[in-house]
């Protein structure tokens, strides 16, 4: 327990200094600093991506404020609260997803929202991004780790059921994030490498089945378009061609803030939402992209560190899974915009314009801060 003692000690030592204030507020200052840097920088890029529309920046700032409050609220709760509530929240989430399929509202052929009179509209699938890893962590941490096969099976089921319900909405991006969150819990729990190998074998079998039986026409189109964007340069391929053009024309040091022609001349679609990273790449170039990715890497490092030194298995598994979910956002979004991955509706975390996912993400960081700052002062 040497490592644990060391970190516990450092936390205790800091009680008297300025970090004492952070402990009282249950804020991890390093993570907080990194997040605020990201959000601030994100607003600067958004101003350009939204074609200098100050109203968009203002709305996003308000959302980010709300998200920060949500983060602080989550940070105040003890991790044991999440653990105790996990089964109930999971049941609630499943009920919500079922309700969405039955009475949900939405647009563009997808039902994602639940409009309960008297309550603000919300997406149960967003809730599941937090609840699925909580539930899986709760379940697995009740048993010995590494988990037995049947426990793994149950944990995977915990991930797959909501994932399937979300696919039916259909919302490929969110289902991907929810599913992987559960899978990451299983991985962190110490599932054997042999099982992991078996899992990938299964995926490679399942993928063609997904292609023929699960994926919608528009989703297939996205994959095909990725493989050959020129096949439909004015239709589905347009987005990828234009975003690659934006990124590539940025060069090493970019065209300069507000100088991106691709975005400002409206060639780049969704320039302030899913494709905002192309704006950054066009205007700040390769250097700007390096800064962004390093910033993300630092956040992930800090979060994995928080997970590694967490005091109990539940906290570790949850923190690890949430961190990796955050990473999936980044990888899928940047991969999509740069033409590595098919177009999936996943925003660039904490930069893209949009409220719901930002709140969920900040709630996750609240959970991480809660884990970091509610460490029990147990002595050796």
């Amino acid at each position, binding site marked *: *327990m040497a*490592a*644990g003692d060391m970190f516990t000690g450092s936390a205790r030592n800091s009680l008297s200094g300025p970090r004492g204030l952070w402990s009282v507020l249950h804020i991890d200052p390093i993570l907080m600093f990194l997040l605020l840097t990201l959000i601030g920088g994100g607003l600067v890029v958004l101003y350009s991506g939204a074609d200098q529309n100050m109203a968009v920046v203002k709305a996003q700032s308000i959302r980010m404020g709300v998200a920060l409050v949500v983060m602080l609220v989550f940070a105040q709760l003890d991790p044991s609260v999440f653990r105790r509530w996990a089964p109930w929240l999971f049941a609630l989430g499943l009920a919500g997803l079922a309700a969405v399929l039955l009475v949900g509202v939405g647009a563009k052929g997808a039902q994602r929202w639940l409009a309960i009179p008297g309550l603000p509209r919300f997406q149960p699938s967003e809730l599941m991004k937090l609840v699925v890893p909580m539930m899986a962590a709760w379940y697995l941490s*009740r*048993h*010995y*780790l*590494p988990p037995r096969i049947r426990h793994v099976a149950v944990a995977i089921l915990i991930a797959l059921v909501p994932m399937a319900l979300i696919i039916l909405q259909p919302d490929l991006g969110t289902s991907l994030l929810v599913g992987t969150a559960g899978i*990451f819990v299983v*991985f*962190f729990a*110490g599932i054997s490498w042999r099982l992991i190998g078996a899992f990938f074998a299964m995926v490679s079998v399942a993928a063609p089945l997904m292609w023929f039986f699960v994926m919608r026409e528009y989703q297939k189109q996205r994959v095909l378009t990725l493989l050959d964007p020129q096949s439909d340069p004015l239709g589905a391929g347009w987005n990828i*061609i*234009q975003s*690659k*053009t*934006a*990124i*590539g*024309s*940025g*060069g*090493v040091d970019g065209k300069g803030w507000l100088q991106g*022609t*691709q975005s*400002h*001349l*409206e*060639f780049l679609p969704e320039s302030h939402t899913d494709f905002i990273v192309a704006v950054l*790449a066009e205007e700040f*170039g*390769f250097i700007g*992209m*390096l800064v962004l*990715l390093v910033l*993300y*890497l630092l956040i*992930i*490092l800090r979060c*994995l560190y928080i*997970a*590694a030194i967490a005091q*109990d*298995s539940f906290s*570790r*598994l949850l923190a*690890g899974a949430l*961190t*990796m979910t955050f*990473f999936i956002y*980044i*990888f899928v979004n*940047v*991969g999509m915009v*740069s*033409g*590595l991955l098919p177009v999936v509706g996943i925003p660039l975390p904490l930069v893209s314009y949009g409220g719901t996912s930002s709140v969920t993400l900040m709630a996750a960081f609240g959970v991480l801060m809660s884990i970091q700052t509610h460490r029990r002062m147990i002595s050796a």
Partner: protein
Amino acid sequence: MPWGEFKDTAAERRLFQRRALVMLLLVATLLGMLVARMYQLQVVEHDIYTTLSDKNRVQVQSVAPPRGLIYDRNDVLLAENRPVFSVTLVPERVGNIEQTLAKLQGMLSISDEDMERFERRLMEPRRPFQELPLRYDLDEQEIARLAVHRHELPGVEVSAELVRYYPHSELTAHALGYVGRINRQELQRIDPINYAGTNYIGKSGVERFYEKLLHGRVGYQHVETNARGRTLRVLERQNPVPGEDIGLHMDLRLQRLAHELLDGRRGAIVAVEPSTGGLLALASVPGFDANKFVTGIGSDEYRELSTSIDMPLFNRALRGQYPPGSTIKPMMAVAGLDSGVTTREKEIWDPGYFQLREGGRRFRNWKRTGHGWVNLMDSVAQSTDTYFYQMGVEMGVDKMHHYLSAFGFGEDATLDVAGALSGLLPSRDWKRAVHNESWYPGDSVNMSIGQGYMLATPLQLATATSVIANRGNWAEPRLLRDIKGDRSIDNVLPTGDHQSIELKNPGDWEFAVDTMVEVMHGSKGTARGAARGAPYRMAGKTGTAQVFSLAEDEEYDEEEIRERLRDHALFVGFAPVDDPKIAVAVIVENGGSGSGTAAPVARALFDAWLLGFPKEGEALVVGASEGDAN
């Protein structure tokens, strides 16, 4: 199992930390992949994407050259360019055409004809991303309304273009012609590069003949556009070369006078400067407003113009083919003398008719009682048909054809008058080919006084008269006088190849002129009334062309039919006699007698040209008819 009791927490933590390390490696690897991807796009393939990006935003647009202006000989503007705002659609950029059209109909008044024309053009093959005009000549309110709703209407543009405008259109439409939208046939013969920005092309007249000169050279501009194709700024520009401004021989004052003189009638006046062949006036009445044709005339309006009994669209001066009648007698006199068929002194007895043989058909003189003993001079002055009947028969068709050809009959002798017709100068071969009959002496009788098969346009009559005025020298009729900016017209104006008419006795020219002078100033001259009191000497010849047929049409009331069955009144002449400054041909359809109707018109033109134009508001004095000769 109770929480945490039997668990090896240290082992679990170590396990987790190992897994976290694996994840960290995964994260690092995948982020590395993203960095590598960015490096590939932004550093390795940067040039490719820069080109793509520029291609996206920078478009090359053609800039239409402003069309050259047209002036008259006194530098009065006859054709200019005026900015007209129109709303255009780029179908490739308009999402839903139906919807957009519906929206536009709510904002602008779009007639069914506009709509019809737009839809027709939509179906026609065209350049991609070409702007299709929907409505022209927007007013300020409509422009403002479109500006307000601009964001809802992708692919809809308000464009200003310079459009041809003819300030004196009713007067000049027939002479200048007009420009109109380029149609499909024209699209195939024009240079697609040079006309890339041009929507109009000369359809007729000067506008058509000097299209190349007036059009100029296209320019280019590189513009930055957004994804919806709106032009944001001009990056680079190569200015077009404007079309050349040209000056015509025409004098707008004379042209206006000609129109005023024919006002209320149908007819044509052609005035030529004999020394140059320059067309001083080229009037066909009634005229029409060519401006209506520029942006596209409505089909109702067009139908009204094209079916009008007065035929305002018909260019009588160039394309009206009339029997020239007695106006060819001076040319016939030249032919008779030079061919030796007659002499100045030879006299014949005119009993009022001519017979090919005793007891045969009588070809009547216009004066039934006859002119008695007449020589050639008398016969031109009094227009004695009998004399020419006999001369024509003796001369025969071949010689008549030969001499009349030399005066430009039967051909289009003009240098730059688009659309001029060549009339009809009959010959033995022609009759054989067309009527499959041989030439009869009776045909020669008719031809000798410009009747029968022979047809000539007013322009041809003016040309032939001008040849006499020049005493046999040719100056082909032409419109172009100069190109502004000291450019020579030598390479632009075609050169004429007409030989001067050489007579065996050159003095016969003066005699022929004298016969025409006798028409005006002689005591028995048919047009002596029109020449009365003139301070200069003039030469002329009256004529009458019979109207043989008119389609019976119940629509016209009887009086109108009677009016339209009257003879056409003709007159040709020039002045002053010794130094001709102007030669004219006048035809007044159904005008009755040449002396009473056409000759005074010519006199007014001579007066204006030689003595000065009447001041504005001053009444035109057109001499009253005197003597009822033809």
